[in-house]
């Protein structure tokens, strides 16, 4: 009998230990807490801060090449001081220009808006909003960040090698990207680009699989799938898109590495470069474009969906009103997710694609406008008859909707192959995707940072700086990209660094100057945001209430500065959907509150 008692106490002791671990009372050193951390909140901050560093670099690149575009005849001696022969005589050389635009695109699309955006908020919000102590596999989650970090190191190093980084555009179409003889940027820099992206894809897959399994398996009691907050649904669809499409890009990258280094001919055929006849025959340069865009198009939704999800949540919280049409929002995200895989060839209407195939892709592409329209109308109705608080997060969300409308509508031009013949690869495309994918997603990201900063750091960002940040960025974004459409309507090709030699495209000199000046101002204001971000981590106004925005979701039931494990006691149980605002005369009803006996059903 004493033996039996002994066993019981051993079991309970083991149980106790297990319990303790969940609550994060085990010893943490600086390294396990801040560097090789397995806490999803710390990993989220790591993604965010790395993303900010990359955004600074990528944004700086755009300022540099905008200087060339706005002032092609002016010399900036400081550029030669900083970049040596890449800017000989104070003017950016074409090789440098193309390296800048290529790295600007790569860095912002992948390192900032994929890793920095969904890496940050999927990590932060999934466990907090579904009611889990951490991710399904905290270790894989940590690996995901460190693969991203490795990818960053490789990509960053490529900037410093003698022949410079990749310079064939962020889409790296072969043969240009396959042949070192064709472009200096296709020498060692291109190999590093491909290796960096391979590591990045590993990171993204580890993260994505983790997000999916966490959302499907680790929701707290009562948290059915239809009670999930919309950001979580958005992260779920994002992860599914990434897991299904990134491997295709990986295959393309690896085949391209083979073509470059092992003499294969997957993408190469009938080539004479610099008078030298190459032996490769039978490959298809177009095949690479299919592989690239099979990721590349879902990629724009990988970037945009998390922003949509967060904007839905923030608009609902700040208009003190439920999100309108929760199920329609879900359905439209699902439709976007499916259609995202069926439209990639609309990037290839003028590659010699079979016209019949082209027409199918026109149909499927324009079909995406339907779920997008539904989302816009639902956001508008969410604002309608609300009681709106304009926090910086809410303003960025409203800005997101405005930009999404503007950029989405120009997508209807480009998705129609007839118009695309004229507008393909012109500045119209640049204006379109910067508004709808670049700036809009950035607005979603800013909204998320302003809204969840109190949860991340237990302090607020400075509001006044936030308002300055919003207004300058909003006005600047439209000043930069709205008139750019006209350049595209004139047929001006993208990636032209000096148009003075052309009769048809040289009439926009003043416009290009204006855009450059605005770019510099907008960039300066982003520095203000970065300053605000880091300053407020240490000196920001402290959060004193558990639920500063009066929100329903579970993250606001955790302590102000949650430890590893998030909730000190039991994980709360969920009794309702997350959008009971203004119901039955009450400002908000948290998800944890049981449904009352005489409460009206929603």
């Amino acid at each position, binding site marked *: 009998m004493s033996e039996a008692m002994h066993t019981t106490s051993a079991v309970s002791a083991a149980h106790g230990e297990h319990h303790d671990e969940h609550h994060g009372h085990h010893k943490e050193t600086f390294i396990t807490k801040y560097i090789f951390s397995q806490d999803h909140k710390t990993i989220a901050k790591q993604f965010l801060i790395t993303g900010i560093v990359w955004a600074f670099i990528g944004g700086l690149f755009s300022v540099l090449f905008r200087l060339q575009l706005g002032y092609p005849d002016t010399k900036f001696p400081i550029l030669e001081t900083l970049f040596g022969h890449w800017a000989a005589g104070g003017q950016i050389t074409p090789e440098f220009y193309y390296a800048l635009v290529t790295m600007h695109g790569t860095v912002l699309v992948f390192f900032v808006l994929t890793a920095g955006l969904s890496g940050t908020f999927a990590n932060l919000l999934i466990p907090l909003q579904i009611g889990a102590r951490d991710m399904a596999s905290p270790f894989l989650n940590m690996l995901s960040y460190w693969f991203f970090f490795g990818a960053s190191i490789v990509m960053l190093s490529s900037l410093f090698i003698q022949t410079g980084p990749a310079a064939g555009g962020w889409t790296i179409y072969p043969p240009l990207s396959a042949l070192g003889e064709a472009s200096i940027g296709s020498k060692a820099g291109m190999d590093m680009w491909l290796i960096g992206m391979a590591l990045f894809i590993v990171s993204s897959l580890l993260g994505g699989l983790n997000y999916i399994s966490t959302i499907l398996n680790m929701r707290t009691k009562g948290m059915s799938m239809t009670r999930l907050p919309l950001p979580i649904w958005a992260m779920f669809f994002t992860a599914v898109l990434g897991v299904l499409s990134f491997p295709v890009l990986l295959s393309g990258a690896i085949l391209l590495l083979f073509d470059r280094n092992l003499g294969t001919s997957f993408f190469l055929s009938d*080539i004479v470069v610099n008078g030298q006849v190459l032996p490769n025959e039978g490959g298809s340069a177009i095949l690479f474009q299919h592989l690239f865009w099979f990721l590349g198009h879902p990629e724009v939704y990988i970037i945009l969906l998390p922003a949509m999800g967060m904007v839905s949540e923030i608009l609902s919280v700040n208009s003190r009103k439920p999100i309108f049409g929760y199920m329609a929002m879900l359905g439209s995200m699902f439709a976007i997710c499916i259609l995202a895989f069926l439209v990639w060839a609309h990037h290839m209407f003028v590659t010699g694609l079979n016209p019949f195939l082209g027409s199918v892709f026109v149909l499927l592409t324009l079909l995406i406008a339907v779920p997008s329209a539904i989302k816009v*109308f639902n956001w508008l109705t969410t604002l309608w008859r*609300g009681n709106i608080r304009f926090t910086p997060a809410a303003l960025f969300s409203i800005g997101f909707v405005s930009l999404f409308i503007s950029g989405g509508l120009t997508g209807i031009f480009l998705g129609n192959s007839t118009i695309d013949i004229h507008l393909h690869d012109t500045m119209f495309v640049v204006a379109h995707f910067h508004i709808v994918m670049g700036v809009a997603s950035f607005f979603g990201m800013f909204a998320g940072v302003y809204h969840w900063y109190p949860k991340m750091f237990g302090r607020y960002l400075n509001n006044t700086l936030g308002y300055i940040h919003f207004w300058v960025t909003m006005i600047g974004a439209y000043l930069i990209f709205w008139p750019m459409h006209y350049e595209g309507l004139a047929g001006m*090709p993208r990636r032209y660094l000096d148009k003075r030699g052309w009769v048809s495209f040289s*009439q926009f000199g003043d416009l290009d100057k204006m855009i450059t000046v605005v770019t510099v101002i907008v960039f300066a204001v982003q520095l203000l945001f970065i300053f605000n971000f880091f300053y407020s981590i240490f000196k920001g106004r402290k959060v004193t209430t558990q639920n500063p925005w009066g929100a329903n979701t579970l993250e606001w039931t955790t302590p102000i500065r949650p430890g590893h494990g998030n909730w000190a006691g039991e994980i709360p149980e969920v009794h309702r959907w997350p959008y009971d605002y203004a119901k039955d005369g009450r400002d908000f009803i948290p998800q944890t509150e049981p449904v009352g006996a005489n409460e009206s059903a929603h």
Partner: protein
Amino acid sequence: MQSFFVIAILVLGFVVMFQIAKASEYVGILRGEEKSRKQSNRVNAFLLLVFLILGLIGVYYCNEQLKDKILGPSASDHGILVDRMLYITLALTGVVFFATQIALFWFSFKYQESDKRKAFYYPHNNKLELIWTVIPAITLTILVGFGIFYWFKITGDAPKNAMVVEVTGKQFGWEFRYPGNDGVLGKKYYKNIDAAKNNPVGQIWDDEANKDDIFVEQEMHVVVNKPVKLVIGAKDVIHDVGLAHFRMKMDAVPGTPTTMWFTPLYTTKQMQDKYGKDFAYEISCDQMCGKGHWSMRGVIVVDTQEEFDAWIAGKKPQYYVAFPDKDPSAPKADSLAKPAPVVASLTTDK
């Protein structure tokens, strides 16, 4: 020195802005957080309305400034279809743009936080959802219908009487080949490309159809009101034949020939009379192709039939450029200059 001042001003601006921001935070706390929050709420709501109004004026002003800088009416028959599709799309999306943007900013302003109002609990309405699913679907069906109709017209087979020109892109320029009197472009093989042997596109000289093919660089001549079919290829990397005035575009892919056809409507002279002496139909490379991409320019000259005939009559088939001794019009003395390499290339070329 100048850049030093710019940086100094930027830093100063930062410090000032930061101090103001910090001060306003303290003032906010002193006056009561709730009160200052409500004040900034009113300010931002008002700014959203101002943004809407100034934005709409800006859209109008921008159009006034720039509408004359886009290229004017299309200079090809296909381009007219492209422009028409563009205006149909512009009209439909324009309505949506103004309606939704005005609603967005107006709602934001009108429903700003107020103690007098309670938010309206309105979680869903299936009828509304149905309406704004069906209406966009119908609108898009119209756009898809027009789009595909025009698309098939543009990408359909070229008429039988179309003249054929082969366009080859290379880093960084354009090369053209005319089929000559037989109307057939001779066969070519990329391994035959050899500038030193006067074979820039790799013609197979054994093919009889090659013997009258004419080769020119940078400037292509076509005939007004006569359909022209371009057979497009590239030597090194992907280029793109961009014809902004004709509203046409097609990639030039090494190893995979592509085609497009159109009918030019105005001669270069007519356009010069209209737009000034400098006017030219330019060929722009629209696909990133290396460091000279931005300067990869070609020119299309649209002639009347007589002008074109006179121009092409002055050109010698490339076969005779490569083998001057075979040229019936050349004096015999020329052919004796370099006989040996000619024989060698004849036997090795397939």
